C-alpha cells in the first residue's frame, strides 16, 4: 500500500497527463467519425448561438453580391420553367400530379458556419429535422455541388463539405459521358481531383464536369466544375484537376436536395448485389 502511494505520488503528473490525453483521444476518435456525427452535433450546439450571431453581423457585408447571384439564379429558373411548360404542352399532357413527377425535393438554407482550412471540412446550415432535412441528402450551392448532410439536430444540420478527405462523388465529363470518382486532395479549396477516367478518352481543358446521379444522393447533371489540367496517372487512367464551380470561401445560400425515390432505387439495387 505504501509502495503504491509512493508510486502514485511520484508519477501523478504522468498519470494526469495520460488520463487527459485519454479523454482527448476518445473525443477525437468518436467525435470526428463520419458515421457518428452526433457528438459533433452536440458539441457544435454549445457554440452555435455565438456562431449564428457572428454570422448575422458579417452577412450584411456581402448582401449586394448575394442579391446579384439570386437575381441570376431566378432568371435561370424562370427560363427552365418556360422550357418545361412548352414540353408538356407539346405532349398534350394535362395531369396535375406534382408528387408523381417530382423526384427531388429542394429546401433552401443558409450556411451559418463553414471552414475550408482543415483537411476534413464541415459546414453547418440553419435547417434541421423539423424542416425535413435528413442524413445523406445532397447540398448544392447556386453554382454547383457543396456537400452531403451527415448529421441533423432539430433546427440545424451539419454537412460534410466537398473539401473533406472522406468526401466521394461520382462525376462525369458532360461532353462524352465518361464517369469517374471525384474527391478532394486536401491542397487547395478551389480544386478537386477526378480520377478513374481511362486514357483513351479525349479530355479538353475547360470541359464541364457534372454529377452522375448513380449514388442516388446528387441529382443527375448538377454542375461540379470544369477541367483545369490533366495528367496521365499510372498506366490506364488520367488524374484530372477540376476547378470547382462552388466558391467555398463565399458559401452562403444553399439548397438541400432530398431524393424521394432514393429508397426505391437502393432497395432494387440491393437485390442484385
Amino acid at each position: 500500500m505504501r509502495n503504491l502511494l509512493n508510486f502514485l505520488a511520484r508519477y501523478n503528473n504522468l498519470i494526469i497527463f495520460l488520463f487527459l490525453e485519454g479523454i482527448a483521444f476518445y473525443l477525437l476518435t468518436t467525435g470526428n467519425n463520419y458515421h457518428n456525427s452526433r457528438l459533433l452535433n452536440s458539441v457544435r450546439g454549445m457554440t452555435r448561438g455565438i456562431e449564428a450571431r457572428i454570422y448575422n453581423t458579417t452577412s450584411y457585408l456581402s448582401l449586394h453580391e448575394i442579391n446579384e447571384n439570386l437575381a441570376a439564379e431566378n432568371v435561370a429558373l424562370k427560363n427552365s420553367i418556360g422550357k418545361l411548360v412548352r414540353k408538356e404542352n407539346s405532349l398534350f399532357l394535362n395531369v396535375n400530379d406534382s408528387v408523381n413527377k417530382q423526384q427531388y425535393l429542394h429546401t433552401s438554407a443558409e450556411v451559418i458556419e463553414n471552414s475550408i482550412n482543415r483537411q476534413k471540412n464541415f459546414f453547418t446550415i440553419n435547417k434541421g429535422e423539423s424542416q425535413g432535412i435528413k442524413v445523406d441528402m445532397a447540398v448544392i450551392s447556386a453554382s454547383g455541388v457543396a456537400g452531403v448532410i451527415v448529421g441533423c439536430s432539430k433546427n440545424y444540420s451539419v454537412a460534410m463539405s466537398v473539401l473533406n478527405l472522406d468526401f466521394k462523388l461520382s462525376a462525369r465529363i458532360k461532353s462524352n459521358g465518361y464517369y469517374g470518382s471525384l474527391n478532394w486532395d486536401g491542397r487547395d479549396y478551389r480544386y478537386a481531383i477526378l480520377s478513374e477516367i481511362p486514357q483513351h478518352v479525349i479530355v479538353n481543358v475547360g470541359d464541364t464536369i457534372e454529377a452522375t446521379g448513380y449514388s442516388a444522393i446528387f441529382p443527375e447533371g448538377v454542375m461540379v466544375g470544369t477541367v483545369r489540367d490533366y495528367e496521365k496517372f499510372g498506366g490506364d487512367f488520367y488524374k484530372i484537376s477540376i476547378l470547382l464551380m462552388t466558391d467555398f470561401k463565399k458559401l452562403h445560400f444553399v439548397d438541400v436536395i432530398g431524393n424521394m425515390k432514393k429508397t426505391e432505387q437502393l432497395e432494387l439495387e440491393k437485390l442484385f448485389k
Partner: protein
Amino acid sequence: MINSILRFGLIFILLILLQVLLFNNIQFSGYVNPYVYILFILLLPIEIPAWLLLLLSFATGLIIDFFSGSPGMHTFATVFAGFVRPYVLRIISPSDGYESGPDPSMLVYGFRWFLSYTLLIVLVHHTTLFYLEVFRFTDFFRTLLRVLLSTLFSMTFILLIEFYRRGK
C-alpha cells in the same frame, strides 16, 4: 494571488477570442493556420505545478475545440504541449537558473531564450495537431510543410504580441 488569477483569466479570454474570431478565419491557400492560443500555456508562471498546467491546457484545448467543431484535436495537442513544457524549460534554462516570481517573458530572459522556448513548444503543438488532423502518414511531407509554415506564422504573431506587451 487573486491578482494573477484575474490577469491570466483576462489573457485567457483575450487569446481565445483572438483565435476564434480572427485567426481561425485566416486561410492562406489551405496550408497556413496560425494557432496563437498556445501562447496562454507559454505565459503561465514557471513554478506553476505540473498538474495545474495540464488541467489548464486541457481546458484551453477543449474550448478551442468547441469553437472549431473538432472534438479532441486541439485538446490532445495542447495537453501534450503542456506536458512537455517543464522539460523544455529544463533544457533551455539560463546558466544562472530561473528567478522565482516572474513569468516566462521576453523582458526577463531575453529575446533568444524566449524564441527558442516558444519555437520548441509551438513546434511540438503544431506537429501533434496537424498529424492528428490528417490521421494518416500518406502525404507525410505535405503535412510537414503545413506544420512548418503554420509554425512560422504562429511564431510571427506570438512574437508580435510579446513585443507589444514589452512595449507597454
